[in-house]
Protein backbone atom coordinates (compact mmCIF):
# COMPACT_ATOMS: atom_id res chain seq x y z
CA UNK A 1 0.00 0.00 0.00
CA UNK A 2 1.05 3.52 -0.78
CA UNK A 3 2.68 5.06 2.28
CA UNK A 4 0.49 8.16 1.97
CA UNK A 5 -2.63 6.03 1.85
CA UNK A 6 -1.35 4.05 4.84
CA UNK A 7 -0.96 7.26 6.80
CA UNK A 8 -4.59 8.17 6.15
CA UNK A 9 -5.70 4.70 7.18
CA UNK A 10 -3.85 4.97 10.47
CA UNK A 11 -5.27 8.40 11.07
CA UNK A 12 -8.78 7.10 10.44
CA UNK A 13 -8.19 4.12 12.73
CA UNK A 14 -6.83 6.33 15.51
CA UNK A 15 -9.90 8.52 15.15
CA UNK A 16 -12.15 5.46 15.44
CA UNK A 17 -10.31 4.43 18.61
CA UNK A 18 -10.82 7.87 20.13
CA UNK A 19 -14.48 7.90 19.14
CA UNK A 20 -14.95 4.41 20.57
CA UNK A 21 -13.25 5.43 23.80
CA UNK A 22 -15.32 8.61 24.01
CA UNK A 23 -18.57 6.78 23.40
CA UNK A 24 -17.62 4.07 25.89
CA UNK A 25 -17.04 6.67 28.59
CA UNK A 26 -19.91 9.01 27.71
CA UNK A 27 -22.72 6.59 26.99
CA UNK A 28 -24.43 4.36 29.50
CA UNK A 29 -27.69 3.67 31.30
CA UNK A 30 -26.98 6.62 33.60
CA UNK A 31 -26.98 9.89 31.72
CA UNK A 32 -24.12 12.09 32.83
CA UNK A 33 -24.26 15.67 31.53
CA UNK A 34 -21.33 16.38 29.25
CA UNK A 35 -19.92 19.28 31.27
CA UNK A 36 -19.84 17.16 34.42
CA UNK A 37 -18.30 14.27 32.48
CA UNK A 38 -15.47 16.50 31.29
CA UNK A 39 -15.05 17.80 34.84
CA UNK A 40 -14.85 14.30 36.24
CA UNK A 41 -12.42 13.10 33.59
CA UNK A 42 -10.00 15.97 34.00
CA UNK A 43 -10.28 16.69 37.71
CA UNK A 44 -10.03 13.14 38.93
CA UNK A 45 -12.04 12.01 41.94
CA UNK A 46 -12.51 15.59 43.20
CA UNK A 47 -15.45 16.33 45.43
CA UNK A 48 -18.12 17.33 42.92
CA UNK A 49 -21.71 17.57 43.91
CA UNK A 50 -22.29 14.16 42.32
CA UNK A 51 -19.68 11.69 43.60
CA UNK A 52 -21.78 8.87 42.19
CA UNK A 53 -21.03 10.11 38.67
CA UNK A 54 -17.32 10.09 39.38
CA UNK A 55 -17.67 6.57 40.69
CA UNK A 56 -19.41 5.48 37.49
CA UNK A 57 -16.88 7.12 35.19
CA UNK A 58 -13.66 6.19 36.98
CA UNK A 59 -14.73 2.95 38.55
CA UNK A 60 -16.76 1.48 35.71
CA UNK A 61 -16.74 3.12 32.33
CA UNK A 62 -13.09 4.05 31.85
CA UNK A 63 -11.67 0.69 32.93
CA UNK A 64 -14.32 -1.07 30.90
CA UNK A 65 -13.60 0.88 27.72
CA UNK A 66 -9.87 0.34 28.17
CA UNK A 67 -10.37 -3.37 28.80
CA UNK A 68 -12.54 -3.67 25.69
CA UNK A 69 -9.84 -1.88 23.71
CA UNK A 70 -7.08 -4.19 24.94
CA UNK A 71 -9.11 -7.38 24.48
CA UNK A 72 -10.08 -6.34 20.94
CA UNK A 73 -6.48 -5.39 20.23
CA UNK A 74 -5.15 -8.72 21.52
CA UNK A 75 -7.66 -10.83 19.61
CA UNK A 76 -7.25 -8.94 16.32
CA UNK A 77 -3.45 -9.01 16.42
CA UNK A 78 -3.49 -12.69 17.39
CA UNK A 79 -5.80 -13.47 14.49
CA UNK A 80 -3.60 -11.62 12.01
CA UNK A 81 -0.50 -13.46 13.22
CA UNK A 82 -2.20 -16.84 13.04
CA UNK A 83 -3.47 -16.25 9.53
CA UNK A 84 0.09 -15.32 8.58
CA UNK A 85 1.74 -18.23 10.38
CA UNK A 86 -0.63 -20.85 9.05
CA UNK A 87 -1.04 -19.17 5.67
CA UNK A 88 -4.69 -19.86 5.98
CA UNK A 89 -7.47 -17.30 5.98
CA UNK A 90 -9.53 -19.41 8.38
CA UNK A 91 -7.02 -19.32 11.19
CA UNK A 92 -8.04 -17.41 14.28
CA UNK A 93 -7.68 -17.89 18.03
CA UNK A 94 -11.06 -19.65 18.01
CA UNK A 95 -10.70 -21.82 14.95
CA UNK A 96 -7.37 -23.13 16.17
CA UNK A 97 -8.78 -24.18 19.51
CA UNK A 98 -6.55 -21.86 21.53
CA UNK A 99 -9.51 -20.00 22.94
CA UNK A 100 -11.29 -23.25 23.80
CA UNK A 101 -8.19 -24.51 25.55
CA UNK A 102 -7.87 -21.22 27.39
CA UNK A 103 -11.53 -21.36 28.41
CA UNK A 104 -11.14 -24.89 29.73
CA UNK A 105 -8.03 -23.88 31.66
CA UNK A 106 -9.78 -20.93 33.24
CA UNK A 107 -12.92 -22.96 33.96
CA UNK A 108 -10.76 -25.51 35.75
CA UNK A 109 -9.30 -22.75 37.90
CA UNK A 110 -12.81 -21.61 38.84
CA UNK A 111 -14.13 -25.14 39.40
CA UNK A 112 -11.28 -25.99 41.74
CA UNK A 113 -11.72 -22.73 43.59
CA UNK A 114 -8.10 -21.79 42.91
CA UNK A 115 -8.83 -18.16 42.30
CA UNK A 116 -8.12 -17.25 45.89
CA UNK A 117 -6.43 -13.96 46.41
CA UNK A 118 -4.90 -13.90 42.94
CA UNK A 119 -8.35 -13.54 41.40
CA UNK A 120 -8.16 -12.67 37.73
CA UNK A 121 -4.49 -13.42 37.51
CA UNK A 122 -5.09 -17.08 38.42
CA UNK A 123 -7.66 -17.19 35.63
CA UNK A 124 -5.11 -15.81 33.20
CA UNK A 125 -2.56 -18.44 34.21
CA UNK A 126 -5.14 -21.19 33.83
CA UNK A 127 -6.16 -19.79 30.48
CA UNK A 128 -2.58 -19.59 29.29
CA UNK A 129 -1.82 -23.16 30.32
CA UNK A 130 -4.97 -24.39 28.57
CA UNK A 131 -4.19 -22.43 25.40
CA UNK A 132 -0.55 -23.51 25.42
CA UNK A 133 -1.54 -27.17 25.73
CA UNK A 134 -3.64 -26.84 22.58
CA UNK A 135 -0.86 -25.10 20.63
CA UNK A 136 1.69 -27.65 21.78
CA UNK A 137 -0.46 -30.65 20.88
CA UNK A 138 -1.48 -29.19 17.52
CA UNK A 139 2.13 -28.46 16.60
CA UNK A 140 3.36 -31.88 17.63
CA UNK A 141 0.52 -33.74 15.97
CA UNK A 142 1.42 -32.00 12.76
CA UNK A 143 5.08 -32.93 13.12
CA UNK A 144 4.57 -36.62 13.83
CA UNK A 145 4.78 -37.26 10.11
CA UNK A 146 7.96 -36.30 8.36
CA UNK A 147 8.12 -33.71 5.66
CA UNK A 148 6.73 -30.21 5.51
CA UNK A 149 3.85 -29.38 7.80
CA UNK A 150 0.55 -29.07 6.04
CA UNK A 151 -1.31 -26.13 7.43
CA UNK A 152 -4.70 -27.68 6.75
CA UNK A 153 -3.65 -30.52 9.07
CA UNK A 154 -2.87 -27.95 11.75
CA UNK A 155 -6.23 -26.29 11.31
CA UNK A 156 -8.13 -29.58 11.44
CA UNK A 157 -6.18 -30.62 14.52
CA UNK A 158 -7.03 -27.25 16.07
CA UNK A 159 -10.70 -27.68 15.31
CA UNK A 160 -10.71 -31.18 16.82
CA UNK A 161 -8.90 -30.06 19.96
CA UNK A 162 -11.14 -27.04 20.25
CA UNK A 163 -14.16 -29.35 20.27
CA UNK A 164 -12.48 -31.59 22.84
CA UNK A 165 -11.72 -28.69 25.16
CA UNK A 166 -15.20 -27.26 24.77
CA UNK A 167 -16.45 -30.65 25.92
CA UNK A 168 -14.06 -30.53 28.86
CA UNK A 169 -15.46 -27.13 29.81
CA UNK A 170 -19.02 -28.41 29.59
CA UNK A 171 -18.04 -31.38 31.72
CA UNK A 172 -16.52 -29.04 34.28
CA UNK A 173 -19.72 -27.02 34.37
CA UNK A 174 -21.70 -30.22 34.79
CA UNK A 175 -19.53 -31.46 37.65
CA UNK A 176 -18.84 -28.18 39.34
CA UNK A 177 -21.83 -27.89 41.65
CA UNK A 178 -21.66 -24.66 43.53
CA UNK A 179 -19.17 -23.04 41.15
CA UNK A 180 -21.57 -23.65 38.26
CA UNK A 181 -22.91 -20.16 38.07
CA UNK A 182 -19.48 -18.58 38.20
CA UNK A 183 -18.23 -20.68 35.30
CA UNK A 184 -21.32 -20.20 33.15
CA UNK A 185 -21.25 -16.45 33.66
CA UNK A 186 -17.61 -16.36 32.81
CA UNK A 187 -18.04 -18.50 29.68
CA UNK A 188 -20.80 -16.29 28.36
CA UNK A 189 -18.16 -13.70 27.99
CA UNK A 190 -18.40 -10.00 28.11
CA UNK A 191 -16.60 -7.12 29.63
CA UNK A 192 -18.73 -6.77 32.75
CA UNK A 193 -15.86 -7.87 34.97
CA UNK A 194 -13.51 -5.14 33.75
CA UNK A 195 -11.62 -3.42 36.52
CA UNK A 196 -8.41 -1.56 37.11
CA UNK A 197 -6.86 -4.62 38.72
CA UNK A 198 -7.34 -6.66 35.52
CA UNK A 199 -5.90 -3.82 33.50
CA UNK A 200 -2.69 -3.78 35.52
CA UNK A 201 -1.60 -7.05 33.93
CA UNK A 202 -3.69 -7.13 30.73
CA UNK A 203 -2.18 -3.90 29.43
CA UNK A 204 1.48 -4.90 29.85
CA UNK A 205 0.89 -8.36 28.32
CA UNK A 206 -0.89 -6.99 25.27
CA UNK A 207 1.45 -4.06 24.69
CA UNK A 208 4.63 -6.05 25.28
CA UNK A 209 3.33 -8.95 23.21
CA UNK A 210 2.65 -6.69 20.26
CA UNK A 211 6.04 -5.03 20.63
CA UNK A 212 7.64 -8.49 20.52
CA UNK A 213 5.74 -9.43 17.37
CA UNK A 214 6.52 -6.33 15.32
CA UNK A 215 10.22 -7.06 14.65
CA UNK A 216 9.13 -10.35 13.07
CA UNK A 217 6.75 -8.64 10.64
CA UNK A 218 8.96 -8.97 7.59
CA UNK A 219 9.68 -12.62 8.36
CA UNK A 220 5.93 -13.16 8.66
CA UNK A 221 5.52 -11.59 5.22
CA UNK A 222 8.11 -13.96 3.80
CA UNK A 223 6.14 -16.96 5.10
CA UNK A 224 4.03 -16.44 1.96
CA UNK A 225 6.85 -18.28 0.17
CA UNK A 226 6.09 -21.46 2.08
CA UNK A 227 8.18 -23.44 4.52
CA UNK A 228 11.12 -24.34 2.26
CA UNK A 229 10.92 -20.95 0.57
CA UNK A 230 11.60 -19.04 3.79
CA UNK A 231 14.20 -21.57 4.85
CA UNK A 232 16.24 -20.57 1.81
CA UNK A 233 16.07 -16.99 3.06
CA UNK A 234 17.61 -18.06 6.35
CA UNK A 235 14.39 -18.07 8.35
CA UNK A 236 14.01 -21.03 10.69
CA UNK A 237 10.27 -21.42 10.28
CA UNK A 238 9.89 -23.87 13.18
CA UNK A 239 11.52 -21.44 15.54
CA UNK A 240 9.55 -18.55 14.09
CA UNK A 241 6.31 -20.49 14.57
CA UNK A 242 7.22 -21.26 18.17
CA UNK A 243 7.99 -17.66 19.04
CA UNK A 244 4.96 -16.20 17.28
CA UNK A 245 2.50 -18.79 18.56
CA UNK A 246 3.89 -18.51 22.08
CA UNK A 247 3.34 -14.76 22.16
CA UNK A 248 -0.06 -15.00 20.51
CA UNK A 249 -1.19 -17.71 22.93
CA UNK A 250 -0.25 -15.50 25.84
CA UNK A 251 -2.16 -12.56 24.39
CA UNK A 252 -5.23 -14.62 23.55
CA UNK A 253 -5.23 -16.30 26.94
CA UNK A 254 -5.07 -12.95 28.72
CA UNK A 255 -7.97 -11.67 26.68
CA UNK A 256 -9.98 -14.84 27.33
CA UNK A 257 -9.21 -14.71 31.04
CA UNK A 258 -10.74 -11.25 31.27
CA UNK A 259 -13.58 -11.43 28.81
CA UNK A 260 -14.37 -15.09 28.25
CA UNK A 261 -14.99 -16.13 24.68
CA UNK A 262 -15.68 -13.30 22.27
CA UNK A 263 -15.67 -14.70 18.76
CA UNK A 264 -15.18 -13.17 15.37
CA UNK A 265 -12.91 -10.26 16.36
CA UNK A 266 -9.76 -12.24 15.53
CA UNK A 267 -11.20 -13.24 12.19
CA UNK A 268 -13.01 -10.17 10.92
CA UNK A 269 -10.73 -7.34 11.95
CA UNK A 270 -7.54 -8.73 10.35
CA UNK A 271 -9.38 -9.69 7.18
CA UNK A 272 -11.12 -6.38 6.82
CA UNK A 273 -7.85 -4.52 7.34
CA UNK A 274 -5.95 -6.83 5.01
CA UNK A 275 -8.48 -6.13 2.29
CA UNK A 276 -8.11 -2.42 2.86
CA UNK A 277 -4.35 -2.15 3.40
CA UNK A 278 -2.77 -5.22 1.85
CA UNK A 279 -0.94 -8.10 3.49
CA UNK A 280 2.20 -6.33 4.81
CA UNK A 281 2.39 -7.27 8.50
CA UNK A 282 4.44 -4.20 9.33
CA UNK A 283 1.30 -2.17 8.64
CA UNK A 284 -1.26 -4.86 9.35
CA UNK A 285 -0.29 -5.62 12.95
CA UNK A 286 -0.46 -2.03 14.24
CA UNK A 287 -3.62 -1.50 12.20
CA UNK A 288 -5.17 -4.59 13.80
CA UNK A 289 -4.27 -3.29 17.25
CA UNK A 290 -6.16 -0.06 16.57
CA UNK A 291 -8.95 -1.67 14.57
CA UNK A 292 -9.57 -4.42 17.11
CA UNK A 293 -9.62 -1.87 19.93
CA UNK A 294 -12.07 0.42 18.14
CA UNK A 295 -14.29 -2.47 17.05
CA UNK A 296 -14.68 -4.09 20.45
CA UNK A 297 -15.13 -0.81 22.33
CA UNK A 298 -17.92 0.14 19.92
CA UNK A 299 -19.57 -3.27 20.14
CA UNK A 300 -19.39 -3.20 23.93
CA UNK A 301 -20.99 0.24 24.14
CA UNK A 302 -23.79 -1.00 21.89
CA UNK A 303 -24.14 -4.16 23.96
CA UNK A 304 -24.48 -2.14 27.16
CA UNK A 305 -26.99 0.36 25.83
CA UNK A 306 -29.06 -1.20 23.05
CA UNK A 307 -31.30 -3.18 25.40
CA UNK A 308 -30.62 -1.20 28.58
CA UNK A 309 -30.98 -1.96 31.40
CA UNK A 310 -30.34 -5.48 30.05
CA UNK A 311 -26.83 -6.10 28.81
CA UNK A 312 -26.33 -8.20 25.68
CA UNK A 313 -23.39 -10.58 25.58
CA UNK A 314 -20.89 -8.64 23.49
CA UNK A 315 -20.06 -11.78 21.46
CA UNK A 316 -23.58 -11.66 20.04
CA UNK A 317 -22.91 -8.18 18.73
CA UNK A 318 -19.44 -8.85 17.38
CA UNK A 319 -20.93 -11.64 15.31
CA UNK A 320 -24.02 -9.69 14.26
CA UNK A 321 -22.07 -6.61 13.25
CA UNK A 322 -19.05 -8.46 12.01
CA UNK A 323 -20.47 -11.23 9.86
CA UNK A 324 -22.48 -9.08 7.40
CA UNK A 325 -19.62 -6.61 7.12
CA UNK A 326 -17.25 -9.45 6.45
CA UNK A 327 -19.50 -10.94 3.78
CA UNK A 328 -19.72 -7.56 2.11
CA UNK A 329 -15.95 -7.28 1.95
CA UNK A 330 -15.72 -10.82 0.60
CA UNK A 331 -18.15 -10.00 -2.18
CA UNK A 332 -16.13 -6.94 -3.12
CA UNK A 333 -13.05 -9.05 -3.06
CA UNK A 334 -14.37 -12.02 -5.03
CA UNK A 335 -12.33 -12.97 -8.05
CA UNK A 336 -9.19 -11.29 -6.85
CA UNK A 337 -7.95 -14.44 -5.10
CA UNK A 338 -5.21 -14.64 -2.51
CA UNK A 339 -5.12 -14.77 1.24
Amino acid at each position, binding site marked *: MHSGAARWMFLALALLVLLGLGAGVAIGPVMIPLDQLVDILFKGWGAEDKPAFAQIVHGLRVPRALTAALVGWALAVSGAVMQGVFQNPLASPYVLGIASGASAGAALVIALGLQGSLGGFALAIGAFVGGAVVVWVVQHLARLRSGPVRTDTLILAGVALGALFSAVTTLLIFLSGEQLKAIVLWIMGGLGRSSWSYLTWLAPVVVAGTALLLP*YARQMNALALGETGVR*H*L*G*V*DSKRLHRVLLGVVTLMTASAVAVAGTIGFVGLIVPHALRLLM*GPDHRLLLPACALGGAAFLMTCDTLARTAWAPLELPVGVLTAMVGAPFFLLLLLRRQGR*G*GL
Partner: protein
Amino acid sequence: MKLSVRGVSFAYDGAFALEQVDLEARPGEVLALTGPNGAGKTTLLRVMSGALAPCQGTAYLDALDVAALKPLQIARRLSVLEQEKPFSFDFCAQEVVSWGRLAHRRRWGRWSDKDQRAVQRALELTQTQAFAGRVLRTLSGGERQRVFLALALAQEPEALLLDEPTLHLDLNHQLQLLDFIRGLARDGLTVVMALHDLNLAARYADRVAVLRQGRLAAYGLPADVLTERRIQEVWGVRVRVLADRQRLWILT
Protein backbone atom coordinates in the same frame (compact mmCIF):
# COMPACT_ATOMS: atom_id res chain seq x y z
CA MET B 1 32.43 -20.82 -3.15
CA LYS B 2 32.67 -24.44 -4.20
CA LEU B 3 29.54 -26.56 -3.96
CA SER B 4 29.95 -30.30 -3.85
CA VAL B 5 28.28 -33.54 -2.90
CA ARG B 6 30.16 -36.70 -1.92
CA GLY B 7 28.52 -40.11 -1.99
CA VAL B 8 25.08 -38.63 -1.50
CA SER B 9 22.03 -40.89 -1.30
CA PHE B 10 18.51 -39.91 -0.45
CA ALA B 11 15.36 -41.99 -0.09
CA TYR B 12 11.72 -40.93 -0.01
CA ASP B 13 9.79 -43.52 2.02
CA GLY B 14 12.36 -46.21 1.30
CA ALA B 15 12.65 -45.63 -2.46
CA PHE B 16 16.00 -44.20 -3.48
CA ALA B 17 15.77 -40.88 -5.28
CA LEU B 18 19.54 -40.40 -5.25
CA GLU B 19 22.23 -43.02 -4.99
CA GLN B 20 25.91 -42.38 -4.43
CA VAL B 21 26.13 -39.10 -6.30
CA ASP B 22 29.43 -37.23 -6.48
CA LEU B 23 29.52 -33.80 -8.07
CA GLU B 24 31.08 -30.43 -7.71
CA ALA B 25 30.60 -26.92 -9.02
CA ARG B 26 33.34 -24.32 -8.84
CA PRO B 27 33.17 -20.55 -8.60
CA GLY B 28 32.54 -18.93 -11.96
CA GLU B 29 31.14 -22.13 -13.35
CA VAL B 30 27.65 -23.03 -14.50
CA LEU B 31 26.74 -26.65 -13.83
CA ALA B 32 23.58 -27.94 -15.50
CA LEU B 33 21.77 -30.92 -14.00
CA THR B 34 19.76 -32.74 -16.56
CA GLY B 35 17.98 -36.05 -16.92
CA PRO B 36 14.52 -37.50 -17.52
CA ASN B 37 11.59 -36.72 -15.23
CA GLY B 38 12.08 -38.23 -11.80
CA ALA B 39 15.84 -38.64 -12.26
CA GLY B 40 16.51 -36.78 -9.01
CA LYS B 41 17.48 -33.29 -10.20
CA THR B 42 15.23 -31.43 -7.80
CA THR B 43 16.11 -33.78 -4.95
CA LEU B 44 19.81 -33.21 -5.58
CA LEU B 45 19.30 -29.44 -5.53
CA ARG B 46 17.39 -29.76 -2.27
CA VAL B 47 20.18 -31.79 -0.70
CA MET B 48 22.72 -29.21 -1.88
CA SER B 49 20.67 -26.38 -0.37
CA GLY B 50 20.22 -28.16 2.96
CA ALA B 51 16.44 -28.40 2.58
CA LEU B 52 16.79 -32.19 2.63
CA ALA B 53 19.35 -34.08 4.69
CA PRO B 54 20.94 -36.96 2.75
CA CYS B 55 20.65 -40.41 4.30
CA GLN B 56 24.22 -41.13 3.20
CA GLY B 57 27.08 -38.94 2.14
CA THR B 58 27.52 -35.21 2.57
CA ALA B 59 26.76 -31.98 0.75
CA TYR B 60 29.36 -29.26 1.18
CA LEU B 61 29.61 -25.49 0.95
CA ASP B 62 33.37 -25.25 0.49
CA ALA B 63 34.48 -27.52 3.33
CA LEU B 64 31.37 -27.12 5.49
CA ASP B 65 28.79 -29.86 5.89
CA VAL B 66 25.50 -28.32 4.80
CA ALA B 67 23.43 -30.56 7.07
CA ALA B 68 25.27 -29.17 10.09
CA LEU B 69 24.63 -25.53 9.18
CA LYS B 70 21.69 -23.43 10.30
CA PRO B 71 19.34 -22.04 7.63
CA LEU B 72 20.70 -18.57 8.34
CA GLN B 73 24.32 -19.62 7.79
CA ILE B 74 23.40 -21.24 4.49
CA ALA B 75 21.25 -18.34 3.32
CA ARG B 76 24.08 -15.86 3.78
CA ARG B 77 26.11 -17.66 1.12
CA LEU B 78 23.63 -19.51 -1.05
CA SER B 79 20.43 -18.45 -2.85
CA VAL B 80 17.86 -20.88 -4.16
CA LEU B 81 15.28 -20.31 -6.87
CA GLU B 82 12.74 -23.06 -6.55
CA GLN B 83 10.65 -24.36 -9.37
CA GLU B 84 7.32 -23.93 -7.68
CA LYS B 85 6.66 -20.57 -6.17
CA PRO B 86 3.41 -19.23 -4.87
CA PHE B 87 2.24 -16.16 -6.70
CA SER B 88 -1.20 -15.56 -5.32
CA PHE B 89 -0.16 -13.17 -2.61
CA ASP B 90 -0.58 -9.42 -2.68
CA PHE B 91 2.94 -8.27 -1.87
CA CYS B 92 4.62 -5.85 -4.23
CA ALA B 93 7.81 -6.80 -6.03
CA GLN B 94 10.00 -4.50 -3.97
CA GLU B 95 8.81 -6.07 -0.72
CA VAL B 96 9.45 -9.58 -2.08
CA VAL B 97 12.97 -8.62 -3.15
CA SER B 98 13.64 -7.11 0.29
CA TRP B 99 13.11 -10.55 1.86
CA GLY B 100 16.52 -11.37 0.43
CA ARG B 101 17.97 -9.24 3.20
CA LEU B 102 16.44 -11.28 6.03
CA ALA B 103 19.54 -13.44 6.11
CA HIS B 104 21.79 -10.44 6.65
CA ARG B 105 19.89 -8.58 9.31
CA ARG B 106 20.03 -8.85 13.03
CA ARG B 107 16.53 -9.40 14.37
CA TRP B 108 16.28 -6.11 16.23
CA GLY B 109 18.45 -4.36 13.69
CA ARG B 110 17.06 -1.61 11.59
CA TRP B 111 16.93 -1.66 7.83
CA SER B 112 20.41 -0.40 6.90
CA ASP B 113 21.70 1.52 3.89
CA LYS B 114 23.53 -1.60 2.87
CA ASP B 115 20.25 -3.51 2.75
CA GLN B 116 18.67 -0.72 0.77
CA ARG B 117 21.54 -0.71 -1.72
CA ALA B 118 21.48 -4.48 -2.14
CA VAL B 119 17.76 -4.43 -2.91
CA GLN B 120 18.19 -1.53 -5.32
CA ARG B 121 21.08 -3.26 -7.07
CA ALA B 122 19.14 -6.50 -7.39
CA LEU B 123 16.21 -4.62 -8.92
CA GLU B 124 18.53 -2.85 -11.35
CA LEU B 125 20.42 -5.98 -12.37
CA THR B 126 17.22 -7.83 -13.15
CA GLN B 127 15.59 -4.74 -14.67
CA THR B 128 12.64 -5.00 -12.40
CA GLN B 129 12.63 -1.42 -11.04
CA ALA B 130 9.92 -0.49 -13.51
CA PHE B 131 7.39 -2.66 -11.72
CA ALA B 132 8.94 -2.72 -8.24
CA GLY B 133 5.81 -1.14 -6.79
CA ARG B 134 3.40 -3.52 -8.46
CA VAL B 135 1.74 -6.44 -6.77
CA LEU B 136 3.24 -9.77 -7.80
CA ARG B 137 -0.10 -11.25 -8.77
CA THR B 138 -0.47 -8.68 -11.55
CA LEU B 139 2.89 -9.45 -13.21
CA SER B 140 3.47 -11.78 -16.13
CA GLY B 141 5.30 -15.10 -15.65
CA GLY B 142 8.53 -13.67 -17.03
CA GLU B 143 8.40 -10.57 -14.87
CA ARG B 144 7.61 -12.63 -11.80
CA GLN B 145 10.55 -14.94 -12.47
CA ARG B 146 12.84 -11.91 -12.68
CA VAL B 147 11.47 -10.65 -9.36
CA PHE B 148 12.32 -13.97 -7.73
CA LEU B 149 15.76 -13.83 -9.30
CA ALA B 150 16.14 -10.33 -7.85
CA LEU B 151 15.16 -11.76 -4.45
CA ALA B 152 17.89 -14.38 -4.81
CA LEU B 153 20.44 -11.71 -5.76
CA ALA B 154 19.46 -9.39 -2.91
CA GLN B 155 20.82 -12.13 -0.66
CA GLU B 156 24.24 -11.33 -2.17
CA PRO B 157 25.08 -15.02 -2.44
CA GLU B 158 28.28 -16.71 -3.45
CA ALA B 159 26.33 -19.50 -5.13
CA LEU B 160 22.99 -19.85 -6.83
CA LEU B 161 20.83 -22.96 -7.17
CA LEU B 162 18.06 -22.82 -9.74
CA ASP B 163 15.40 -25.41 -10.45
CA GLU B 164 14.13 -25.14 -14.03
CA PRO B 165 14.49 -21.36 -14.15
CA THR B 166 13.19 -21.20 -17.73
CA LEU B 167 9.93 -23.00 -17.03
CA HIS B 168 6.88 -21.06 -18.27
CA LEU B 169 9.07 -18.52 -20.06
CA ASP B 170 8.90 -17.84 -23.78
CA LEU B 171 11.97 -18.42 -25.92
CA ASN B 172 13.13 -14.82 -25.79
CA HIS B 173 12.84 -14.65 -22.00
CA GLN B 174 14.52 -18.04 -21.61
CA LEU B 175 17.58 -16.79 -23.47
CA GLN B 176 17.62 -13.44 -21.68
CA LEU B 177 17.44 -15.11 -18.29
CA LEU B 178 20.17 -17.62 -19.03
CA ASP B 179 22.41 -14.95 -20.58
CA PHE B 180 21.99 -13.02 -17.38
CA ILE B 181 22.78 -16.04 -15.21
CA ARG B 182 25.81 -16.78 -17.39
CA GLY B 183 26.94 -13.21 -16.69
CA LEU B 184 26.59 -13.77 -12.94
CA ALA B 185 28.86 -16.80 -13.20
CA ARG B 186 31.38 -14.73 -15.12
CA ASP B 187 31.43 -12.40 -12.13
CA GLY B 188 32.42 -15.30 -9.90
CA LEU B 189 29.16 -16.84 -8.75
CA THR B 190 28.83 -20.61 -8.58
CA VAL B 191 25.70 -21.62 -10.47
CA VAL B 192 23.96 -24.98 -10.40
CA MET B 193 20.71 -25.36 -12.31
CA ALA B 194 18.36 -28.12 -13.25
CA LEU B 195 17.44 -27.84 -16.91
CA HIS B 196 15.26 -30.04 -19.05
CA ASP B 197 16.19 -28.42 -22.30
CA LEU B 198 19.40 -30.04 -23.55
CA ASN B 199 20.08 -27.32 -26.09
CA LEU B 200 19.98 -24.68 -23.38
CA ALA B 201 22.17 -26.86 -21.16
CA ALA B 202 24.65 -27.29 -24.01
CA ARG B 203 24.69 -23.59 -24.76
CA TYR B 204 24.89 -22.14 -21.27
CA ALA B 205 26.60 -24.69 -19.03
CA ASP B 206 30.31 -25.17 -18.51
CA ARG B 207 29.65 -28.65 -17.27
CA VAL B 208 26.68 -30.95 -17.58
CA ALA B 209 25.67 -33.70 -15.19
CA VAL B 210 23.21 -36.30 -16.42
CA LEU B 211 21.13 -38.06 -13.78
CA ARG B 212 19.23 -41.24 -14.42
CA GLN B 213 17.14 -42.93 -11.75
CA GLY B 214 19.01 -41.15 -9.00
CA ARG B 215 22.45 -42.08 -10.26
CA LEU B 216 25.00 -39.94 -11.99
CA ALA B 217 25.08 -41.24 -15.59
CA ALA B 218 27.60 -38.76 -16.93
CA TYR B 219 29.43 -35.61 -15.91
CA GLY B 220 31.72 -33.39 -17.92
CA LEU B 221 31.90 -30.89 -20.75
CA PRO B 222 28.64 -30.55 -22.70
CA ALA B 223 30.17 -31.88 -25.91
CA ASP B 224 31.51 -34.96 -24.13
CA VAL B 225 28.33 -35.66 -22.19
CA LEU B 226 25.53 -34.86 -24.60
CA THR B 227 26.25 -37.41 -27.30
CA GLU B 228 23.71 -39.07 -29.55
CA ARG B 229 24.39 -42.41 -27.92
CA ARG B 230 24.00 -41.19 -24.37
CA ILE B 231 20.80 -39.31 -25.11
CA GLN B 232 19.41 -42.47 -26.68
CA GLU B 233 20.49 -44.47 -23.62
CA VAL B 234 19.19 -42.10 -20.96
CA TRP B 235 16.13 -40.53 -22.55
CA GLY B 236 15.30 -43.27 -25.02
CA VAL B 237 15.10 -40.74 -27.83
CA ARG B 238 16.88 -40.80 -31.13
CA VAL B 239 18.49 -37.42 -31.86
CA ARG B 240 21.09 -35.86 -34.09
CA VAL B 241 23.85 -33.87 -32.47
CA LEU B 242 25.64 -31.33 -34.62
CA ALA B 243 28.70 -29.52 -33.39
CA ASP B 244 31.16 -26.95 -34.50
CA ARG B 245 34.00 -25.55 -32.44
CA GLN B 246 31.78 -23.35 -30.29
CA ARG B 247 28.30 -24.73 -30.29
CA LEU B 248 26.29 -27.89 -29.98
CA TRP B 249 22.87 -28.43 -31.57
CA ILE B 250 20.67 -31.28 -30.51
CA LEU B 251 18.00 -31.99 -33.09
CA THR B 252 15.03 -34.21 -32.44
